[in-house]
């Protein structure tokens, strides 16, 4: 399982801001970035990658920004996981952490660390750090939830392998 945070870079377009653990393979990351261009009516959605046996579960949300066009940063939390896991398992945690990210004052500054117009703003580094710790915490929560879910799925599978 991998967690990624995507954002819409005003200059270069959709970009993977954070991924843990490690980076996401190019084939998958291209597809994830492509989701940003889709016009989704729901904020929470999933995509199956049949060939890769993977599922990408996404939660799109926005945070207010004084530096972005339209005064909002477009973000998406994505979980890349085994295709057999139900997306509902991750929803609550993704929702909780999206709210956490939204609640941090001036967090949008974390997305301007790579040499934009406001790179000298003293708050950028602390916001980057804050966002990273929130995302790492989110990953840990997702991993724990997944472990519990795997245990749950085990007993469900045992019963479901028979007809009743």
């Amino acid at each position, binding site marked *: 399982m991998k967690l990624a945070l995507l954002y819409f870079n005003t200059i270069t377009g959709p970009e993977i801001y954070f991924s843990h653990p490690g980076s996401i393979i190019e084939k998958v990351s291209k597809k994830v970035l492509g989701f940003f261009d889709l016009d989704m009516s729901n904020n929470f959605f999933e995509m199956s990658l049949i060939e890769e046996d993977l599922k990408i579960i996404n939660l799109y949300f926005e945070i207010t920004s004084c530096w972005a066009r339209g005064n909002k940063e477009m973000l998406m939390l994505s979980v890349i996981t085994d295709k057999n896991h139900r997306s509902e398992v991750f929803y609550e945690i993704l929702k909780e952490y999206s709210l956490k990210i939204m609640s941090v004052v001036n967090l949008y500054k974390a997305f301007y660390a790579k040499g934009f117009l406001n790179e000298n703003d003293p708050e950028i580094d602390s916001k980057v750090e804050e966002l990273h710790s929130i995302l790492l915490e989110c990953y840990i929560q997702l991993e724990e939830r997944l472990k519990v879910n795997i245990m749950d799925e085990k*007993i469900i599978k045992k019963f479901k392998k*028979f*007809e*009743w």
Partner: protein
Amino acid sequence: MVINLEKTHLIYITGLIIISIISAYVLIVLPHGAPIVVLESSFFLFGLGLNSTILLWTIAGYLFFRWIRTNRKNQSLLIWSISFLIYSFTFVAHIFRALGFSDANENLSVFHFFAWRWGMPCFSAGILYGILKILTENRKLQLIPSISVGVLGFLWLALGLFIIPSENPIEVTMYLFLHTIWIPICFTMAYIFAFYGYKSKEIGPKLVGLGFFLLMISYHGWAPWHFQDVVYLYFIWYFLFLLSLTPILLGFVLMSVEERHE
């Protein structure tokens, strides 16, 4: 219009006619039912035994029906079906005991008790084997605990009834058997079904779990209330036992219904 209605609801109209005839007869003749003297003091045992037997046979029958309908693949259904059927023998005996058949009285001698209660260790081993067949594919893990429960159950029956010297061997046997095998097995079944129901968000398994839990509670009532001066309260536990079979039946029915609606 009238002819159409008569054709469509012929069964209803026929039913009404039959009911009318019976009602007219009752209202005119005011019949007095024939007595069954033998039931005068044992009607409650007859009723409890009859209802228990009907419910246990319905559960056994339904599980057997489902086993057939599901192409005989779910062996647990067959094992449980046989287990419930064997368990019902005790209650069939209650019916006959209430009707005055002395040989059906399990308290007549230790041999009679054994003859009408051997189904209980079989039931314990059977339901455990059924659930283990679902939980594990390891044959040893399926068989060893189930056979152990069966053997231990029969051992308690043999020790309590025939070997340990006691003024009341049936009492010793029941204490041993209920509190070391029956109650823990019922609780195990209750927990596994309830856990599965909770995780799968299905009502059927939860009801089966509830049924086994109530079954366990009802047997907890045996030890303190089986004494002669308070035995009438034991019959209240018997009523609770009867009640516990309903959620088990309903739960198994719902499990197949919920499966079809997935």
